[in-house]
């Protein structure tokens, strides 16, 4: 059924359709509206046979999820930013124990300085935690991916992180096609755990493992992710069959045929990029777009196949591996290893900095003319940076950087664009 609603609301409804049994909630922007919605549905009885638990921290949220999932209950939670970092230890534990928890990450920057706006630093910080990480481009896809996530998680006995851009998607009102309960039930069977805590069949879970077997355990985690590379497209295909539209999969090529320049990105920014690329193609430029839906596992082969004809790649990423540059770009380079393709990293949209068509036009053209450095920062106000560096050269006690910058900017009024 078509409806116009907030992204968070769409996700909450989708999760509800998946018949979750335990939901742990802890407030943090911009994820809050999702669990608020679920809490309401549990209380109203709209979601039946479900425990909604208000925990005392994200660490507890993931820990409660570990307990309920280990005891065989379909479990969901959501977080963002600092919250994800605060639960990090439990995040690794959940995947280590092979618990099929589904978690929404409403992507948001990491402080300090504290910043509530969108970028991908939070989920990127957990890229090696053993969870499957899939990124949504639109609210429709966010909704679809959650339904797929439960199936994926439970088939593999692995937790899945559905990443959607904070505010940009979570708080955006747009049209979504909400599936029916019957459709979801047809797609998602009841959860049958691979292992669970049960007095009728007792086991010890989470024993210490020494050097003699640890490598094997870790390799198995890797092998599971490789299995996911085959399972994800299968599930996407099955999904299309039942729900009638495309969603999920590993990658999303757009106008790639004959493109000599390919822009690679994750999440909602793909929309703006596609609009930009359309205009460039209208100007006769050979530019294509490759969206990555599955970041973990990282679809090396699929990407290699998709870009093999290109001459250059621009990886636009909303996170920074401080001290080296791109995270996604580094991964993409692995995919293009040995191919005559130039890969450029463009760091953009940090802490909610708007990514505009204008800026994209400029930077993509610069790349096409080899006019930018391998790691480029989109719309960076180099003047401010230099002022800070200069200040630091001159005096020892310069005070806090962030505040100085705001002073240089003159006030904290909302900046458009």
């Amino acid at each position, binding site marked *: 059924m078509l409806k116009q609603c907030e992204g968070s609301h769409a996700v909450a409804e989708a999760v509800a359709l998946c018949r979750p049994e335990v939901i742990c909630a802890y407030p943090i922007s911009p994820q809050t509206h999702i669990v608020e919605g679920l809490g309401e549905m549990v209380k109203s009885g709209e979601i039946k046979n479900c425990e909604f638990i208000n925990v005392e921290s994200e660490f*507890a949220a993931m*820990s409660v999820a570990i307990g309920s999932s280990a005891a065989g209950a379909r479990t969901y939670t959501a977080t963002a930013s600092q919250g994800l970092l605060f639960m990090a230890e439990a995040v690794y534990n959940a995947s280590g124990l092979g618990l099929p928890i589904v978690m929404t990450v409403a992507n948001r920057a990491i402080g300090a300085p504290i910043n509530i706006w969108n970028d991908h630093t939070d989920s990127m910080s957990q890229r090696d935690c053993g969870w499957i990480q899939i990124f949504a481009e639109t609210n429709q896809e966010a909704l679809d991916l959650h339904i797929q996530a439960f199936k994926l998680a439970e088939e593999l006995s692995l937790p899945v992180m559905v990443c959607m851009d904070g505010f940009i998607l979570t708080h955006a009102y747009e049209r979504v096609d909400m599936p029916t309960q019957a459709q979801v039930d047809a797609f998602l069977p009841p959860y049958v755990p691979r292992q669970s805590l049960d007095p009728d069949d007792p086991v*010890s879970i989470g024993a*210490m*493992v020494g050097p003699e077997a640890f490598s094997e355990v870790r390799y198995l985690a890797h092998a599971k992710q490789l299995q996911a590379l085959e399972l994800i497209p299968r599930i996407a295909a099955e999904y299309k069959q039942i729900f009638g539209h495309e969603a999920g999969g590993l990658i999303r090529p757009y106008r790639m045929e004959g493109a000599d320049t390919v822009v690679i990105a994750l999440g909602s920014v793909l929309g703006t990029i596609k609009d930009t690329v359309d205009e460039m193609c209208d100007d006769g430029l050979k530019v294509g777009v490759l969206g990555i839906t599955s970041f973990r596992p990282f679809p090396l082969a699929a990407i290699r196949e998709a870009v093999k004809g290109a001459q250059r790649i621009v990886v636009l990423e909303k996170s920074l591996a401080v001290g080296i540059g791109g995270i996604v770009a580094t991964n993409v380079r692995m995919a293009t290893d040995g191919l005559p393709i130039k890969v450029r990293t463009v760091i953009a949209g940090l802490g909610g900095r708007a990514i505009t068509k204008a800026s994209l036009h400029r930077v993509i053209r610069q790349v096409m003319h080899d006019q930018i450095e391998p790691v480029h920062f989109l719309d960076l106000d180099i003047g401010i940076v230099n002022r800070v560096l200069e200040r630091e050269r001159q005096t020892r006690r310069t005070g806090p950087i962030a505040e100085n910058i705001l002073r240089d900017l003159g006030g904290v009024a909302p900046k458009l664009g």
Partner: protein
Amino acid sequence: MDQQVKFYQTGTFTVGNRLLAPEQRAVQADMARTNSLNSGHRACQGCGEALGARYAIDAAMRACDNQLIAVNATGCLEVFSTPYPETSWQIPWIHSLFGNTAAVATGIAAAMRVKGRKNVRVIAQGGDGGTTDIGFGCLSGMFERNDDVLYICYDNEAYMNTGVQRSSATPPAARTATTMPLGPEPGNVFGQGKNVPRIAMAHGIPYVATATVADLRDLEHKVTKAMSIRGARYIHIFVPCPLGWGAASHDTIKLARLAHETGMFPVYEAEHGEVTGVSKIRRRVPVEDYLKLQRRYAHLFGKKPAVETIARIQAMADLNIRKYGLLEEGAN
């Protein structure tokens, strides 16, 4: 019958008592006890925690007809009970992290509720570090929500698994790897530490109790009582650690007994935040008798004894005795 036997019988305080009716005997006296924590574990000789865990879990198993799931914090108990590729547990058991035990238990209890298996009960267990320090947040949250979990803390007064470092349960003057007997105030300083049983009581949860491995019947009584109640429950069990305390492996129970009989560790139970019963001291002893058996207090004795420090420790014990009324009427 019980009373009469308690008054008469040789060995009233022993584990078993051949003159009691079978149903009145201790779980540990039962030939068919579950041995929830089975032989072959890697605990040190004379480990008080291994003992306390089997006491508590066996009693809980009997109380819930073996429909039990246990969660374990990181620590000695977890490490020595599940050395790959073996486990000593005879019950469904999970170890997740050091600091999240109470929360994991909450999750399991929730899962059992939605699955309509109300008969399955959940126990969370950890050492003093995992409980009073790193796991404290989750513990408090579990209490505050009154989740249907029995949390058991095995208190050996330091981080033993990592090599005897101070925890918020380490007593004053005690030597640990991070509170060396050096400087003007050797060992752990006075005026620190956290009384978690009292904090648990402050949450107003249905049941809180302390116990030691020296009085099995009392311990089993409390576990059984806790298991008969729904909601958040907390039992704090005093378990001496021969290794960490520098004591003889055969003195484990003796030390626990002395901790109670000196007043160093008050044994009581509380319901909804109010103390409802205390275990009286049978043979009061001065704290020296307790301290002298442990090398972690060796610096208090030696050539010139730290009379003042010992007096301060005695004062703490005396305060407990006054505060909890640990002496029988007329006892000295």
